[in-house]
């Protein structure tokens, strides 16, 4: 067996492990020696492990962060990406790129601690632990640690925390998350309160002393501590709040401060002298200086990292995964095995049925059986480039994940046309017509052909409707969209079904997120019940069960193929891992070798 075949098989093995959702005992990473040319075995690259996310204790919340293997402290690390960060104000941060970057300069009440590769715990970041819940899940109390300071040396207080949440109600904040605000007031939170700038404060947040914050929600939320881990809920100093201008000049509570920033071109970070690693269980902050470069496309960044010349050896990228035109080359190049990281998408991708039009469940089930997952996977670049999930909730972002496969996709990824025909024969229309709308990109054009061919084999006529990329979402999110089947995605904001199911099966309205238009009062009641269940473990299990139940009872969608991203790093970069929830290289464990 030659090198290439070996490494392809290794990747296949990794991908299929990911499919089954098992926790592979797995490699902890590739050996550091490069293969010499006579060897028969290529060093396996770090295999993908489905992450395990659990709740940490107060002890887990104590700093410093756990050091990765072979860590080197000091030096200058270079990060190259295409886009600058449009928002630096936590309240305006939502994209994964900005959220990931904010780990370097912002801190929140809670956060995710990397315990080992693939193992994460929710711990207290500024708080002493991941919060104390009371009152049946309606009240959450956090205590701030000693020694947590702003970059000017002033202490971070509970007043800062209260202020940070209150200011998110202000009109100029439109971008960040809305969960906490809604839980504190009501669904239409902007009507309830307009922010603290006119002097009015929010009583639902209490600050009995300088170190204690109490949140009083209207309904129980057992996973609120996960919500606070979002970058959008990082803390802002009340005294230095410059409102709109804060978005360009934030104050740091994290390990670094912004030394210089040329918009869209570069940014340099230097150490924040008032950040105490002993208070921070999450961030390693090993390099002394961060140099960020913007403006290069994924293709160029990949080529640079492949070439690994001179200073590029101490460079990596947060976000620029290997583009399709380089993917095969990178995956088959053994010399890159050590510097390669893969991770499947943490987002739920689905082909939604429009239940207002495709009313017969047997037709929907038939389509699920006929679905050509394997062929679509091929179109996307093969098993190394795409995974085939079978559940609504994504295994990477669900605590308490349990896999199941309703339609036999694992055994028959190419689809089961016979079974589909059987179901269609029993349905109201053995030869239905399906109007399939799709985003008009080159890859989607190919996938559409694959789908059409497969469904036609089962006797289903497919009418395809290409839509312009810019208006795709607007088109399909209309209630009267005129289509029967269309692709869409939804990412969990924290690893719980509560950020997925109530959204994609929530209220049906124009521009909303319930694209299947599934309206089931029983389902609504069940979701409300689970959301308000104060027992987090029971809730997680219930979400998983509901996932299966929804597909069994309603079959409102076909679970779509998930892209597997591949990243490269320079040869002198250590500790580079893909954060499985955010699908981006995390800065927390990064170190640079001289």
């Amino acid at each position: 067996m030659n090198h290439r075949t070996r490494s392809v098989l290794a990747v296949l093995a990794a991908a299929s492990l990911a499919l089954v959702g098992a926790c592979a005992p797995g490699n902890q990473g590739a050996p550091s020696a490069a293969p010499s040319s006579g060897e028969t075995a290529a060093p396996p690259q770090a295999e993908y492990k489905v992450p395990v996310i659990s709740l940490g204790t107060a002890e887990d919340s104590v700093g410093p962060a756990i050091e990765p293997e072979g860590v080197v402290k000091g030096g200058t690390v270079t990060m190259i990406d295409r886009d600058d960060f449009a928002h630096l104000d936590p309240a305006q941060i939502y994209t994964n790129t900005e959220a990931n970057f904010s780990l370097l300069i912002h801190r929140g009440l809670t956060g995710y601690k990397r315990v080992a590769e693939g193992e994460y715990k929710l711990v207290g970041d500024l708080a002493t632990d991941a919060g104390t819940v009371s009152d049946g899940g309606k009240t959450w109390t956090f205590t701030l640690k000693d020694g947590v300071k702003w970059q000017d040396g002033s202490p971070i207080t509970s007043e800062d925390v209260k202020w940070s949440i209150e200011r998110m109600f202000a009109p100029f904040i439109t971008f960040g998350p809305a969960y906490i605000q809604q839980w504190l007031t009501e669904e239409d939170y902007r009507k309830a309160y307009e922010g603290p700038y006119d002097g009015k404060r929010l009583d639902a947040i209490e600050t009995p002393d300088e170190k204690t914050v109490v949140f009083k929600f209207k309904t129980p939320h057992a996973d609120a501590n996960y919500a606070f881990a979002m970058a959008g809920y990082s803390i802002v100093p009340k005294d230095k709040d410059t409102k709109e201008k804060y978005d360009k000049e934030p104050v740091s509570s994290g390990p670094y401060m912004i030394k210089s920033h040329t918009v869209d071109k570069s940014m340099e970070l230097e150490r924040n002298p008032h950040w105490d690693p002993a208070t921070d269980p999450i961030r390693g902050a090993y390099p002394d200086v961060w140099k960020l470069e913007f403006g290069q496309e994924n293709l160029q960044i990949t080529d640079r990292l492949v070439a690994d010349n001179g200073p590029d050896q101490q460079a990596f990228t947060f976000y620029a995964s290997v583009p399709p035109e380089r993917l095969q080359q990178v995956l088959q190049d053994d010399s890159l095995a050590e510097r390669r990281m893969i991770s499947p998408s943490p987002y739920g991708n689905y082909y939604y049925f429009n239940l207002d039009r495709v009313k017969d469940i047997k037709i929907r089930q038939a389509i699920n059986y006929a679905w050509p997952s394997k062929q679509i996977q091929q179109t996307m670049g093969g098993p190394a480039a795409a995974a085939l999930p079978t559940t609504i909730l994504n295994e990477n972002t669900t605590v308490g994940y349990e896999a199941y496969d309703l339609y036999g996709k694992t055994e028959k990824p190419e689809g089961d046309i016979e079974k589909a025909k059987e179901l269609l024969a029993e349905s109201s229309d053995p030869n239905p017509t399906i109007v399939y709308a799709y985003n008009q990109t080159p890859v989607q054009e190919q996938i559409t052909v694959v789908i059409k061919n497969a469904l036609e084999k089962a006797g289903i006529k497919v009418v395809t409707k290409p839509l312009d990329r810019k208006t795709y979402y607007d088109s399909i999110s209309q209630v009267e969209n005129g289509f029967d089947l269309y692709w869409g995605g939804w990412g969990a904001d924290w690893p719980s079904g509560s950020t997925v199911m109530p959204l994609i099966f929530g209220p049906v309205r124009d521009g909303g997120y319930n694209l299947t238009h599934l309206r089931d009062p029983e389902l609504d009641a069940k979701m409300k019940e689970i959301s308000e269940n104060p027992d987090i473990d029971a809730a997680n299990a219930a979400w998983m069960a509901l996932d299966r139940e929804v597909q069994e009872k309603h079959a409102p969608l076909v679970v779509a193929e998930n892209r597997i991203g591949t990243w490269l790093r320079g040869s002198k970069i250590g500790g580079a891992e893909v954060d499985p929830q955010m699908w981006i290289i995390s800065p927390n464990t990064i170190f640079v070798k001289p």
Partner: protein
Amino acid sequence: MLRFLIRRVLGAAVILLVISAVTFFLFYAIPADPARLACGKVCPPETLEQARRNLGIDQPLLVQFVSWLSGIFVGRDYEGLGNCPAPCLGFSFVNKAPVFETIMDRMPVTIALTLGAAVIFLIFGVATGIVAALRQGKPLDKIASVSSLIGASVQIYFVGTLAMYFFVYQTQVFHQPKYVPITEDPLGWFNGLLLPWLVLAIIFTANYTRITRSTMVENLNEDSVRTARAKGMRERSVVLRFALRGTLTPIVTIFGVDLGTLIGGAIITETTFGLQGIGRLAVRAVDYSDLPTLMATVLLAAAAIVVMNVVVDSLYAVIDPRVRLS
């Protein structure tokens, strides 16, 4: 001459106004909602409305356009973001940076890229054209014609990427292309732009070679050139002073157009080499429905072409005495 210039300047102003208006109203004809992009992942309707108010796009179109226009001349006050002095081009919908500053920041990159490449393709293209014309029919002529045809047919993203692969990553003959301000490090500035200049020049050279060659060939057969020879003028003088003079007009024409177009942004070149110039700014503005930046880049590109037209027309009068207005 003065009257001519005044007339042209007024005409240019009208053209720019019309282009701005058309762009503005076309933008709103596109169904994509810029407020949606300024709103988070979970975007309740009231937040969307607030986003629209923040961006100022809830106002009637005509009001918005007039505000934008007047802002250019007298500046504008924005709630929260403060005063934006004239010429005020607004704040980007993407990152709230002042558009005028962003354009000024990107201009040096685009101008450096344009001028460097222009010098190369003008000199090289014309020189090759002259050689080809003088050695008409001979091997040198054929080589020049074929290579310029190849140059015109290749695509920047292909040649550029290939050049990067061979000359930057594999052999490191060229430095990693990047923009370093000339005031900071002239040598770095030069090295960082050399490869982009060459690649961009390859595409444009062909046109100049072709036009120079064919015009020269025509001119070399002109009666006036024959007269010059009959006067006993030396062949080299005949070629340069008489034949070449006649080629200046078409060359100036296309040079003006090329320069104007490039100043509006060499999108593919900038993307291939990771240079943050006006071109990429324009593309991002379209992608993200960033109206202020879009208006600014369109205005800039249009102004560049209009200005170059006026310059070229004025140059005609300098080059060709027959064109001079009395």
